[in-house]
């Protein structure tokens, strides 16, 4: 188990350290701090930024395809990256069975997500009303998200669907988990195919960009709606202590928490 050694193993070059340790940690730090800052400072900008009013024919198919595909893809990544292969084998899932399932389910999810994202990008480019309403964060987010998704599905297609098969669970996953237990293994990913490496890098850039884009609406998924009473009353005076209003505290005493 050489992967369990000191994070600064001699095998890791300076470039590897920069790409697979420094960049990920910087991105994760920006992700965390950025979210806190945005949530406290910009409740008003925190929205899905719907454009359905302006265009609904493409959105009708593109948005559900993209979102449902994305849920499956994210679930697949959680399983593939977070759960060590020793665990799945321990419960009796063979390496072959795991990969067959992953490739099939992943292909369906990936194709749905790519098709959906393609439609969403197409309507954004082709519908003038929406193109004009596209702001700077969107102009950054859409290419970055597309690059990440396309690199991911290309890597899978090239190596695991049509190629000889690449066991990312013993390399990329080890590196990814290492980041979160504060024992980075840059050497684990340093030998991975270029497509996987690029996918990992764009994904971390996406994490860094996340709090500054419309992606923040992910954290507002309204699950609580299933449980809350239908009718919402609020006192005029209660608005002072609006629970989630973060930076917008309307306190008369002048205590602005997020100043």
């Amino acid at each position: 188990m050489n992967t369990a050694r000191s994070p600064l193993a001699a095998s890791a070059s300076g470039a590897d350290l920069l790409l697979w340790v420094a960049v990920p940690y910087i991105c994760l730090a920006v992700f965390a701090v950025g979210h806190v800052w945005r949530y406290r400072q910009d409740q008003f900008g925190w929205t899905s930024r719907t454009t359905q009013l302006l265009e609904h024919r493409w959105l009708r198919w593109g948005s559900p395809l993209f979102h449902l595909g994305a849920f499956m893809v994210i679930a697949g990544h959680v399983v593939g990256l977070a759960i060590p292969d020793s665990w799945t084998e321990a419960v009796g899932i063979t390496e072959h069975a795991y990969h067959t399932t992953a490739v099939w389910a992943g292909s369906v999810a990936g194709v749905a997500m790519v098709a959906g994202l393609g439609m969403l990008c197409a309507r954004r480019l082709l519908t003038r009303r929406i193109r004009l309403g596209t702001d700077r964060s969107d102009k950054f987010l859409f290419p970055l998200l597309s690059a990440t998704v396309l690199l991911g599905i290309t890597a899978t297609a090239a190596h695991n669907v049509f190629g000889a098969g690449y066991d990312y669970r013993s390399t990329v996953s080890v590196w990814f988990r290492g980041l979160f237990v504060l024992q980075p293994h840059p050497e684990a990913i340093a030998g991975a195919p270029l497509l996987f490496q690029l996918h990992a890098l764009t994904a971390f850039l996406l994490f860094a960009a996340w709090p500054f884009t419309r992606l923040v609406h992910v954290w507002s998924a309204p699950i609580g709606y299933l449980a809350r009473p239908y009718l919402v009353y609020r006192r005029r005076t209660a608005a002072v202590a609006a629970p989630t209003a973060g930076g917008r505290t309307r306190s008369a005493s002048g205590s602005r928490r997020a100043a």
Partner: protein
Amino acid sequence: MRVMAQIAMVMNLDKCIGCHTCSVTCKQTWTNRTGVEYAWFNNVETKPGVGYPRRYEDQEQWKGGWMLDKRGRLVLRSGGRIKRLLSLFSNPDLPSIEDYYEPVTYDYDNLVSAPAQKDIPVARPRSVLTGKPTAITWGANWEDGLGGAPEHAGGDPNLSGEWAEKVKFEFEQTFLFHLPRLCEHCLNPACVSACPSGAMYKRVEDGIVLVDQDRCRGWRMCVTACPYKKVYVNHATGKAEKCTFCFPRIEAGQPTVCSETCVGRLRYLGLLLYDADRVGEAAATPDEHDLLDAQRGVFLDPHDPEVRAAARESGIPEDWLDAARRSPVYDLVMRYRVALPLHPEYRTMPMVWYVPPLSPVLDAVDAAGGNQDDPDHVFAAVTRLRIPLEYLAELFTAGDTDVVAGVLMKLTALRSYMRERTLGEDGDEAVLKAVGLTTREAEDLHRLLAVAKYQDRYVVPAAHKEDAAALTAMENRCPVETSGDTEPRKIMLGIPTLRRNTNAGGRP
């Protein structure tokens, strides 16, 4: 009994001349911003007509409001909670901008900058959404004054049933009236119930329904759920916006902008006390025809000592109780019962009520060779001339023509009696008696409908000084917001600090 107060509105449709001053002043106040160019918190429609947005009253299509399920329970027509969440990615029942209209501006600059030439320069229309020259093909009141009605007005969803055939065939003897509409600030608001984020709420103190701009996440379920289509998506900010009932003015004891500027002086503002515990039950009344009475049953008599005691217990201040006793809205809705809600069958318990227009009936009397001033002729017209009555019933009483006829007869009797009195005659009290009015009541109702002054029409108690601190804090911000930059079409949503700057000045 849980007593709550609501500032409610009544409009006397007989007086509406369709001048759109309310709409224009409202727009200048609230929606002259990027993203809501197409939105009219207050609009005036010609009826019969398809309305704004097109055919919004067709709930088979738009799925607004509430309905009773097979077991008689009150459910949102657009579906339950799980269906709401499944529709987040693409809402199947959301009107598109074409259902409203494509907002335009004009090349005004061309009028002054065009070079000297033989032809007079013109200001061509240009789409606000695309910046391209465009042809104007629809608007918020396209069939104004029945213009183009033969082509479009047949699409009015209220023209259903056999009697509607008659309307279409007899357009030579057609009728029209104007219907000013704003948010109904319902007792049982479907928009609030459909909001997945819990950003929409009804204020306890005055019943105004608002969108918390900081908590709205742009899921756009409110737009679908509102059967009146009075919640709008700001396409620049991606958030919902709606009529605020001009709450900053209301809190200061002033009427809303639409009321203040109403040329015909047809609007009335006043308090209604209601029992919040009975709202759900009333909204679930099985028979649609009983909904009007069910809603009236929720309102409380401010003169009743028990109600007053309960209201004090709920924290309603004494001057508000006094205002509730002087409320012209209470008089029109409960005492004289001449005001009716718009589409009670949506089960949202709307709080902007209407005195139905008598003028279409009077026109019909004239057309039939009768005498407008003879109550017998008008009574006969009210019951026999089926065209406007059934139409009005579709709008105001879920199709119950008896109720509309009763109100119109009351108005006719009042008109005839007061006319005689004004001419120095005694007045025929039998006519009044037939509609259940005493002479004193008739004089009072006449004063209210015909000559009421500003302070009689708008009885708006100011918010309390005890709450002043909270209210001042709210002045720092606007209930609807722009994205902060002056240049149109460039919305910097990813750059929050830009917008913060506008707030920084108000920081204590």
